[in-house]
């Protein structure tokens, strides 16, 4: 998979919040084989005071995708993105503009506006969006080279609440990498996304808050791999009647 010109082999992106310890996080990253991790930059840590934790993240050898988690306005998101570029030395930014405090769903109007500003400023934007096609188009027009539709609200673990919409997105954006971001709860959710032809999955809580985060990270990676392989292998279409899998011809005639 290519994201903004970078070839990555793992189709799992991991968030880094809420783990029992940085050690468990590092082990989960290793167990999953993930190559990209997201890190939220809050204003309170942008002065470099988060450096202790960031050093541990850099030690994992993964590529860091800073995000604007928790930003509720265009200005806040743009400022946070600019601070993240300084702190992490990357043009990559996962763009979140939150529109609703209970569901944490994206403010798609603010998202498109912020994406336009950041793309013009040389950022490579990973927009966290809904599964709305028109919003997707506007983000692509704004300069985004990939889209990150939600599966369900952040941290809810509900899985893919609207697989049909993701299927439509896949059909509508055949050449744009699609990464399902948010809502994944179980490995089967991740596998389902991949079977739909989604290119990658970004998740955090499902691993961080699992009883055994390291085992769950591996399980997610396997689910993603299985789903991807299944998609590439062109699954059969469902039929509305039974078809015996054993040929009838050549059955023994018993009297």
């Amino acid at each position, binding site marked *: 998979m290519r994201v903004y010109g970078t070839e990555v082999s793992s189709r799992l992106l991991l968030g880094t919040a809420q783990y*029992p*310890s*940085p*050690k*468990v996080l*590092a082990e989960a990253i290793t167990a999953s084989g993930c190559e990209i991790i997201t890190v939220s930059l*809050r204003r*309170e*840590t942008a*002065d470099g*005071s*988060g*450096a*202790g*934790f960031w*050093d*541990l993240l850099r030690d994992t050898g993964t590529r860091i995708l800073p995000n604007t988690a928790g930003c509720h306005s265009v200005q806040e998101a743009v400022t946070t993105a600019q601070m993240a570029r300084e702190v992490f030395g990357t043009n990559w930014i996962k763009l979140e503009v939150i529109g609703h405090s209970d569901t944490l769903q994206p403010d798609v109007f603010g998202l498109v506006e912020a994406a336009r500003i950041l793309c013009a400023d040389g950022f490579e934007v990973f927009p966290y969006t809904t599964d709305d096609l028109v919003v997707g188009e506007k983000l692509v027009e704004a300069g985004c080279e990939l889209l990150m539709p939600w599966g369900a609200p952040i*941290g809810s673990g509900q899985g893919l609440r609207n697989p049909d919409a993701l299927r439509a997105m896949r059909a509508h954006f055949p050449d744009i990498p699609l990464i399902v971001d948010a809502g994944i709860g179980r490995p089967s959710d991740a596998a389902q996304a991949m079977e739909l032809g989604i290119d990658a999955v970004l998740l955090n809580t499902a691993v961080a*808050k699992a*009883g055994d985060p390291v085992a769950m990270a591996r399980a997610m990676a396997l689910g993603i791999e299985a789903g991807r392989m299944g998609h590439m292998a062109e699954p059969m279409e469902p039929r509305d009647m039974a078809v015996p899998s054993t040929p009838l011809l050549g059955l023994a005639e018993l009297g």
Partner: protein
Amino acid sequence: MITIAGAGLAGLACALELARRGAQVRVFDPGHAPGDRSVARYAGGMLAPWCERESAEEEVITLGAQAADWWAEVTPVTRRGTLVVTPPRDRAELQRFARRTAGFRGVDGDEIASLEPALAGRFSQGLFFEQEAHLDPRRALRDLTATVQELGVEIIYGTPAPSGVTLDCTGMASPVEGLRPVRGEMAILHCPEVQITRTLRLLHPRMPLYLVPRGDGHYMIGGTMIESSSTRAISLRSLSELLSAAFALHPGFAEASVVETGAGLRPAFADNLPRLVQQGDTLHLNGLYRHGFLLAPAMAARAADHLISETSHEPDRQRATA
């Protein structure tokens, strides 16, 4: 003579363990009064290893189970357990907490009301960790200081430690490798209208809270964990979340006075467990993270074993360090 840098929680606990083993101990601290430079001032003072297991390794229980007994010899310890509750909407959080912990029994609304009458009718389900306890961190630091001084430990305030001390317990000021700061924030409320007698934990996916009674209508609330070295005052976001959570626990807290807020940096290693680290001639005890009062006794005993076996050349007394 054993010299210790830092008269905070770790340094004083080690001084006590060493003095009890008959060692002569001198402690240096740049502060001017017991604990005035110690992050332990802002601690909850919970002795709650079974609850902490929710997000910590098993070692927190094995090292912390005896902490309440250790402290009871030094300072008043309230042994009334911990009550964990959650709003009805977040019942899944309670199930998750129960799966991750041990040493509790499930309680219904009636039992919650009999344990804490102030919560009658407010919560219908909870977990009660009967063996847990709490103490008042500032009182404990003062009492611990007095206890070690009675045993002949010399504490020299206003003086940074000379180089080459035997034991370094300076928290984030320590040069030991692999430490990172984890910021914690707290507030102290005065609210005589609400009478709660034991530590409460409110589980919530976004704003988890613990509340520890300090007596005389005072309550300490806390719960934030931020990967940051900033020592600025508590942020409005954190404070409003803590206060909202307290209000969710009991609306009577709306009338509380916020008498103090604070923020401190808890030193932690990557696994969030404390360690003894030998660096040159100095042994370091550090990384107590959010478990200072809980794990200091066991770690201090290990440090004392290590130092005394070393000085008396009794290899059979040497224990593996954590």
